[in-house]
């Protein structure tokens, strides 16, 4: 038996494949910036403007908080309601999309295609759509977040369902349980913790996303963010940024703590 360390080939020795990819990437980067007309100079010439802005934001108009705490609360409410609606709707779809529950490949594929389509819609596009449908205000925001969460959570859910122990499913089937009873007694108890964890995770994401939705008229603090920016009230913008920052950190921390408890 030959037990020698083999010699590396020329390609392996000089990492030619790695170099090839790097060079290709640099060429593509150069080409695309040439095509879109990127002027590297402007990246930096306006840099001083950035510092002017930061300077103005650095002295926040704290009394502005009295006006924005209400829309801030609305933002969180939008996220909570939207996430709840989306998550609850995702449960039946996730069950139908799971390989180990629905053996019929056609049904599963149709549902998965539908879920994929929903997931391709970016949240800002959804917001623009819903503002057009239900009008300006937080209702549009709730709908946006509901659809957005539905797309995301349904995928996370069905992937979680596919990892469960199938032994209890077999046992329940052998005991004469019907499909619904198998889901209730053998599937749901195994994934309940995952469900709650994904709900919280989505809620975190939605709190962040919903701060922006107001930009498109979908309610919440984004409306005020846009107003202060367009009227050059950077001191007010500063307050909004700081408050959003604080709220997101608190909610992330709380939901992380809760999710760790669940595991």
């Amino acid at each position, binding site marked *: 038996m030959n037990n020698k360390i083999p010699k590396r080939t020329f390609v392996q020795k000089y990492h030619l494949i790695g170099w090839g990819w790097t060079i290709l990437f640099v060429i593509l980067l150069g080409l695309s910036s040439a095509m879109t007309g990127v002027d590297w100079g402007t990246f930096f010439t306006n840099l001083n403007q950035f510092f002017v802005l930061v300077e103005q934001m650095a002295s926040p108009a704290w009394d502005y908080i009295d006006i924005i705490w209400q829309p801030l609360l609305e933002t969180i409410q939008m996220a909570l309601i939207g996430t709840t609606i989306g998550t609850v709707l995702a449960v039946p779809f996730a069950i139908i999309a799971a390989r180990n529950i629905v053996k019929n490949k056609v049904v599963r594929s149709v549902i998965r295609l539908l879920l994929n389509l929903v997931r391709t819609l970016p949240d800002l596009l959804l917001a623009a759509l819903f503002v057009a449908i239900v009008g300006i205000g937080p209702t549009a925001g709730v709908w946006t977040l509901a659809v957005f969460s539905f797309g995301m959570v349904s995928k996370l859910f069905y992937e979680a369902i596919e990892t469960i*122990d199938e*032994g*209890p499913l*077999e*046992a*329940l*089937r*052998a*005991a*004469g*349980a*019907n499909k*619904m*009873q198998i889901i*209730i*007694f*053998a599937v749901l*108890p*195994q994934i*309940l*913790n995952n469900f709650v964890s994904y709900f919280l995770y989505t809620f975190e994401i939605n709190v962040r996303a919903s701060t922006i939705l107001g930009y498109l008229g979908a309610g919440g603090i984004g409306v005020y963010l846009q107003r202060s920016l367009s009227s050059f009230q950077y001191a007010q913008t500063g307050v909004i940024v700081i408050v959003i920052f604080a709220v997101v950190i608190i909610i992330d921390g709380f939901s992380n703590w809760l999710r760790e408890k669940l595991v």
Partner: protein
Amino acid sequence: MVEKLIEFQQVRKVYSNGVVGLDNINLTINKGEFVAVVGLSGAGKSTLMRTINRMHDITSGDILLNGRSIVALKGKELRQLRREIGMIFQNFNLVKRSSVQRNVLSGRVGYYPTWKSALGLFSKEDKEKAELALQRVNMAEKIYTRVDQLSGGQQQRVAIARTFMQDPQIILADEPIASLDPMTTKEVMDDLKKLNQDFGITVIANLHSVPIAMEYSDRIIGLRAGKLVYDQPIAAVKQTDFDEIYAEKQEG
């Protein structure tokens, strides 16, 4: 009086990949028997067992339960067949995140409409029956414990209690002791034997251990490569008989 319970008539099972699982099985199992099925892995023991509760369908032949053919049952009738046949698994197959009580009660869901079981509306009698079932297997004090806190032997006993909830005519035990230590093996086998003797439940158990099979069963059946190669009442079984069942290759 001997009463026929299960009859296999020229049962053949070919898997979709062409492998023959069962090859022309003719077999009658009587009410109240404790039958041990022995044979090498892949000999068709699990397949034979699962054709009785239709977890596996057969390719040709017929299986009668109390004189009635079961091979064509569908939907509700199939579920009614299954709820009268308990099943015990090597890996216990309990829901680990649920309580012992809920696992035991889940053995009863075949007798409930979906909405009632979904809301956990089990009758008082059934809740008492669950307590009784757990007492029978010495697990009463663990009723509110989560299953993942129990040892393997304890889990198998909970699984037996779950089966008991079905009021089964038959219990199919697929390698019930394969993942247990010798001490708990004895407890679990004793539990099965008690169900067999006290309630006249017919027990069919796939066993790897010949000594255990000789100790507990009334009759031993041997399978090799999907064929029934051995069938004797326990009084007629000789130790040397097993050489043939466990022979790796057929002679000749």
